[in-house]
């Protein structure tokens, strides 16, 4: 390095060059002496470290966040499990290892081989999970034969446990091993092959909140792979906790009431959209997935014709049947097609064109007004009203009440249902709307489709004063020590433009449907609790001659019951759908009653009478909700 300065430089600049040269010399001297130290003085030490063995990362898994019900009762917990991993760099002869390993872990050799094949792109020093959640016997076998199993390591991993098994399984979801596709996503940059991530339900939707961050130890190991010392440690960060709107006790009752049936049940708080209970049957045990699901179990779930993985509350689309009549009635009153006094004669059959449209009551209802038509669910009355209104005016009210659109259920996967109109049919099939179809629409058949959750949201909104709430399942996300990270306040998505006079009329009629002796929903009656509700029976196949005796259970009608209580100021909405259950009043209404009864006993509220509502149907009072 030349330090002599040229003559024509100013003293300041000369000083700058001198300083620059000093900095350069010092910097390079530092590096040279460091290299001398590392490579020459300590070269043998590092050579040995690099050859015999290495520094490793041993993971400490982060506890996953817990789910709590609305009363702070945990819905999930955890248990320690043992996983077997392989450090491929320490295996001198892979072929010689695969056989004993396969025997000890009772895992087919091909499975281990395909696992190794899949991990080709992963650096050799990274551990590869071979089997998760081994049994105590397998653990003992691995530990005693450790010397014959070079590179094989057992890790303790905290695993998710679902103590209530199938309870609310569609809502909670399940975990599964991370897929190659997920690994490539930006949000999983921190994940490795073999990690478990949420695959369904809340576990999936809130994966990033629940997962936490794994910690680990940087350890130095000897040639046998045994730990010599810990060089550094990072504690894991537990995942955050979710506080749900679900009521565990009510959910248990709802599960019990639906046991053995195929269908769906939703219980929600109409005043804020909180889902209190949500049941879809058949269901599954998420524990099977968390422990690494076996091929047979997976097959039995996927190939089950009843589709246990389907969440029928949001994915099952059914014709709403007579439940839909309340919207037709509202349309009739609002559009002034009828007044409450308008009466039609029901002879049990209504001829139209070259067909006969039947009432469920073969004897006929005689002259019926609107209230009785709702209470006794007279089909002929609604055929006539449907003809007066036409499909498009009915659709206007059905859409305004939220049908035909997803409810905004926060876990997604929701089906939108269908509210047909004449232009929809033209666009879809290229055929104009037929007058006879108005009749089917008016009793909730035909193209009409709705999910149980949609019916629950619509009922809640109509009778809480007109506020359509987004269903809420997660109320808040909190850090492990309790600090609130994110709140999900109730959210009103829209207001339903139906006059309070019409609402009050229908409300009273629905009370009658459950509480008057001729009501179709009498089996949902709860002594002391003023329940209001509507039955529905949706036809699975269009039957030519009314109610024929079905030959196969798969051809039986779907049974609906939608209700709310207390009728004048609802606190709970319950919707029940039983697939192929037959009549709504006989099958679905008793299910709803069990839930309502439990809810009522829990609250021990003073009873309220319908006279009380009739006296004070003021909107101001209803707006409290």
């Amino acid at each position, binding site marked *: *390095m*030349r330090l002599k*300065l*040229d003559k024509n*430089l*100013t003293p*300041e*600049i000369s000083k*700058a*060059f001198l*300083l*620059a*040269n000093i900095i*350069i010399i010092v*910097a*390079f001297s*530092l*590096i*040279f002496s*460091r*290299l*001398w130290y*590392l*490579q*020459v003085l*300590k*070269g*043998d*030490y*590092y*050579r040995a*470290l*690099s*050859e015999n063995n*290495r*520094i490793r*990362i041993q993971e400490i898994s982060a506890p996953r966040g817990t789910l709590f019900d609305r009363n702070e009762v945990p819905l999930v917990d955890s248990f320690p499990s043992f996983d077997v991993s392989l450090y491929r*760099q320490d295996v001198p002869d892979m072929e010689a290892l695969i056989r004993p390993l396969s025997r000890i872990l009772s895992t087919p050799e091909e499975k281990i081989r395909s696992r190794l094949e899949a991990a080709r792109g992963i*650096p*050799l*020093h990274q551990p590869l999970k071979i089997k998760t959640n081994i049994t105590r016997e397998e653990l003992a076998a691995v530990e005693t034969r450790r010397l014959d199993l070079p590179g094989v390591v057992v890790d303790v991993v905290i695993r998710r446990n679902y103590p209530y098994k199938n309870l609310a399984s569609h809502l909670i979801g399940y975990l599964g091993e991370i897929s190659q596709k997920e690994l490539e996503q*930006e949000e999983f*940059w921190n994940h490795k092959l073999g990690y478990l991530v949420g695959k369904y339900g809340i576990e999936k939707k809130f994966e990033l909140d629940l997962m936490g961050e794994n*910690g*680990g*130890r*940087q350890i130095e190991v000897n040639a046998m792979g045994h730990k010599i010392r810990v*060089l*550094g*440690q*990072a504690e894991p960060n537990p995942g955050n906790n979710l506080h749900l709107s679900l009521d565990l006790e009510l959910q248990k009752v709802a599960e019990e009431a639906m046991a053995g049936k195929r269908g769906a049940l939703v219980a929600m708080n109409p005043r804020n959209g909180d889902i209190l209970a949500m049941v879809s049957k058949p269901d599954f045990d998420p524990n099977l997935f968390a422990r690494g699901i076996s091929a047979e179990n997976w097959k039995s779930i996927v190939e089950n014709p009843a589709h246990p993985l389907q969440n029928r509350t949001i994915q099952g689309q059914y014709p709403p049947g007579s439940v839909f009549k309340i919207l037709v009635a509202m349309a009739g009153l609002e559009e002034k097609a009828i007044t409450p006094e308008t009466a039609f004669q029901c002879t049990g059959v209504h001829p139209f064109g070259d067909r006969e449209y039947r009432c469920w009551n073969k004897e006929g209802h005689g002259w019926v007004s609107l209230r009785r038509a709702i209470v006794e669910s007279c089909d002929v009355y609604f055929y006539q009203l449907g003809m007066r209104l036409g499909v498009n005016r009915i659709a206007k009210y059905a859409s305004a009440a939220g049908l035909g659109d997803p409810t905004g259920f926060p876990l997604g996967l929701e089906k939108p249902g269908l509210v047909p109109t004449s232009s929809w049919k033209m666009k879809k099939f290229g055929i104009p709307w037929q007058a006879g179809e108005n009749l089917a629409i008016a009793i909730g058949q035909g193209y009409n489709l709705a999910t149980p959750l949609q019916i629950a949201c619509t009922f809640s909104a109509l009778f809480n004063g007109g506020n359509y709430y987004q269903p809420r399942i997660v109320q808040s996300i909190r850090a492990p020590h309790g600090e609130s990270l994110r709140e999900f306040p109730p959210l009103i998505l829209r207001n339903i433009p139906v006059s309070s006079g019409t609402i009050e009329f229908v409300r009273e009629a629905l009370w009658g449907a459950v509480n008057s002796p001729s009501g179709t929903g009498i089996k949902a009656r709860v002594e002391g609790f003023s329940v209001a509700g509507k039955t529905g029976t949706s036809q699975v196949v269009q039957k030519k001659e009314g109610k024929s005796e079905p030959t196969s259970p798969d051809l039986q009608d779907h049974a609906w019951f939608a209700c709310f209580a207390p009728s004048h100021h609802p606190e709970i909405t319950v919707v029940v759908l039983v697939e192929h259950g037959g009549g709504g009043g006989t099958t679905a209404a008793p299910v709803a009653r069990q839930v309502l009864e439990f809810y009522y006993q829990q609250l021990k509220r003073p009873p309220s009478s319908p006279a009380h509502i009739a006296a004070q149907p003021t909107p101001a009072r209803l707006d409290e909700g």
Partner: protein
Amino acid sequence: MLDRRLIINFDWPTLVTAFLISCIGIFNIYSSTFPHGGTAAPLFLKQAYWLILGLGLVIFVLAFDYRTFVRYSYPFFLLCLLLLILVMAVGRTTSGSQRWLSMGFFSFQPSELTKIALILAMTRFFTEKEDPRGYGLRELGIPFLLLGLPILLIFKQPDLGTVILLLLIFTSILLFVGVRFKTWALLGAGVAAAIPILWIFLKEYQKNRLLTFLNPDLDPLRTGYHISQSKIAVGSGALFGKGFLKGTQSQLHFLPEQHTDFIFSVLAEEWGFAGCVFLLFLLLFLISRGVKIAKTSKDRAGATLAIGVTAMIFWQSFINVGMVVGILPVVGVPLPLVSYGGTALVTTLAGVALMMNVSMRRFMLSP
């Protein structure tokens, strides 16, 4: 335009040194990405194409007087700023930081280009606004703007390494253009005062990240682990190394960035102390050529330009090697001409060409 004196004064030693260093780089990229599977072109081949492109750029840069480049430096600087903004909008994100523009068959890193743009723009400013009394704070407004804008954009990506480099290049140039002593004192005091204030505004995770930069033991699973592995790789090379493609650490791919930021560890493992000294002396030679060119330049523009480029090469070499051998915190800074990365290679070669340009034209000054 092509004067005989240009050919006589052609700076062969500088060009040959830069070329040699680049070839060492390609060899080490070959080793650090071995075996070369897959359908995509192997990285060492890509780097070789970039080197050919860079040599073409050297000829282009030498064909014009360096003052021409200085004259167009402000529009060029603005272009770089636009590219940085574009990166923010549509850039490609790799391992959490957004710094690439995808141009079909290759990606491009505008933050690399910004280094040259800053050097050229500062050269223009300090040539036009010469102040024999030395600069005070007020006169330095525009240079601070030239530094501040790209730093803000690059900090957002986030690319702390480039931010630190721009700061060092800036400070190095200030050292030579003549800044009043009082101003230095004020700047020093200002920086010292700003740090605790900035610290208060940082989020918890940002603080942790910075602390980890300073003390990798706080993150034993990632940064700290890399340091341990890097030290083992370097140390195990011993005096003469394990031989080409024989580095056990490198061939097991312990380090995620071993063909870019940690390439020196591959060289150190396979070629030992001898190999390290060889490469470092080549770099030192290039740097001292730069210092000499600055010193013998006959105009202020040439001197400033050479200082800037030399500072860029020096600081990058020092920080990168210092990080690999574990005496400096881990910030993502590539080793000039050696690390894999097309934009960085071409940019550094363009800088070397500007230096050569100053050297070649030092005897034919006509304002």
